[in-house]
């Protein structure tokens, strides 16, 4: 099939960007979206032009590196998939496809479609862990039974891949889904409970410092999240933040 691509071109963080149009012919429906971008880049290099810089790595939907805003949606059309899992059969022959980077003050653009998401790392560094040393000399793994339901719920929160689609799709560039998923995972497990009060305060502080907007409960993040992380995580974090503040000394 034939596709008209409009792709964001931006030289560097402070440059002004613009959409650039390219015609793609003989696009196979079996191609992944990123393979289609590979074909475009291959052609650009052969023509002596600069290819588009975009982030990608595992290409199987788990590393969270790929990050394209396609036709007005984070990771494009289709639910529960990342850009690398999106296939060209999701588009129609003759369609025009707009490709943009994640846009958020907290995700500055590095080049073209590549953004800097280290703000997410700093939020985790602020408290997204259990303070346990790596000696291995903790207690036996089975010494604290954890109800299956809690363990499964913690797992569901823990499947977040940190791609940033929630921020990209939120009209406020809010990182609440990302932050709350980690807060939830660790507060649902007895191992993380001990420091859950301080954790939520510190992670929310860092989130605010990074310049993310706040949540207005539109629910767009949950819909666009490739891993289906639920809004109940945000509610849990709201609850924990409130009670932590009320009970902290």
């Amino acid at each position: 099939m034939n596709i008209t691509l409009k792709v964001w071109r931006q030289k560097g963080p402070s440059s002004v960007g613009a959409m650039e149009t390219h015609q793609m012919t003989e696009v196979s429906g079996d191609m992944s979206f990123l393979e289609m971008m590979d074909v475009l880049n291959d052609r650009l290099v052969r023509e002596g032009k600069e290819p588009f810089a975009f982030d990608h790595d595992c290409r199987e939907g788990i590393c969270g590196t790929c990050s394209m805003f396609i036709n007005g949606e984070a990771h494009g059309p289709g639910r529960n998939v990342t850009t690398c899992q999106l296939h060209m059969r999701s588009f129609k022959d003759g369609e025009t496809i707009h490709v943009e980077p994640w846009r958020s003050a907290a995700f500055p653009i590095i080049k073209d479609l590549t953004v800097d998401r280290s703000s997410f790392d700093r939020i985790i560094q602020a408290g997204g862990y259990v303070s346990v040393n790596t000696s291995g000399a903790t207690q036996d793994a089975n010494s604290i039974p954890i109800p299956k339901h809690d363990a499964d719920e913690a797992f569901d929160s823990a499947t977040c891949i940190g791609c940033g689609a929630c921020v990209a799709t939120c009209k406020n560039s809010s990182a609440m889904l990302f932050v709350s998923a980690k807060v939830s995972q660790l507060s649902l497990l007895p191992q993380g409970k001990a420091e859950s009060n301080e954790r939520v305060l510190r992670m929310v502080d860092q989130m605010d410092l990074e310049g993310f907007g706040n949540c207005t409960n539109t629910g767009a993040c949950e819909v666009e999240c490739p891993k289906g992380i639920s809004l109940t995580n945000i509610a849990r974090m709201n609850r924990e933040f409130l009670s932590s503040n009320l009970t902290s000394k």
Partner: protein
Amino acid sequence: MTMSKTGILKSSLSKKYVMAFTGLFLCIFLVGHLIGNVQLFSTGPEGQAAFNSYAEFMTSNPLIKLMSYLTYASVLFHVVDGFVLTIKNRKARPVNYVVEKGNLNSSWASRNMALLGTILLVFIVTHMQHFWWTMHFGDIIMVDGVKDLHTVVMDFFNPTVNRLAAVMTGLYVFAMISMGFHLNHGFQSAFQSLGLNHPKYTPMIQFVGKAFSVIVPAGFASLPIYLFLIQS
């Protein structure tokens, strides 16, 4: 671990709590207001007396006074906080998308709360000027020793007395539709912001929210329509 660096009052989450608390309080106010309005459907002398003494009670009872100050404060905080949040949220995305399809993942109301809120703010100001101001400071006839607010309202929507009655009826209805959308998202959103989300109860809250966002604005809007129609 050390304590929170910015503290609860400065946190973006606390702003959400303020929005939620004040919003829910205003929902309670709406119910009270609507109960008063219902009495206006009785347009005869009996209704006039009942409504006027109700209005007198509402402006003089100390407990109600306290509630009304809380309402003013709620509106103020809801507006100021909403304004601050909106500015902050806009700043979080300095460059907008060329193509953005929010309609595929969220409701229109949820994305336009600031717009809807602004419409409601304009409405509240004009509405207070129409009735609250008249009641408190206006030149108003006394009947049976109390201010005759009943006639003020009747006349306001009476095309033979007020030549703008049709426009006013239309504006009131428009404002109530806006309020419906605002509540449609806002009601359940407040519960989510306060962390009140539970697989068992959330569907119920959502149902109540939807019902509230239809019944309450419809109740308010029906009065100007009724008064306008019976007096035309």
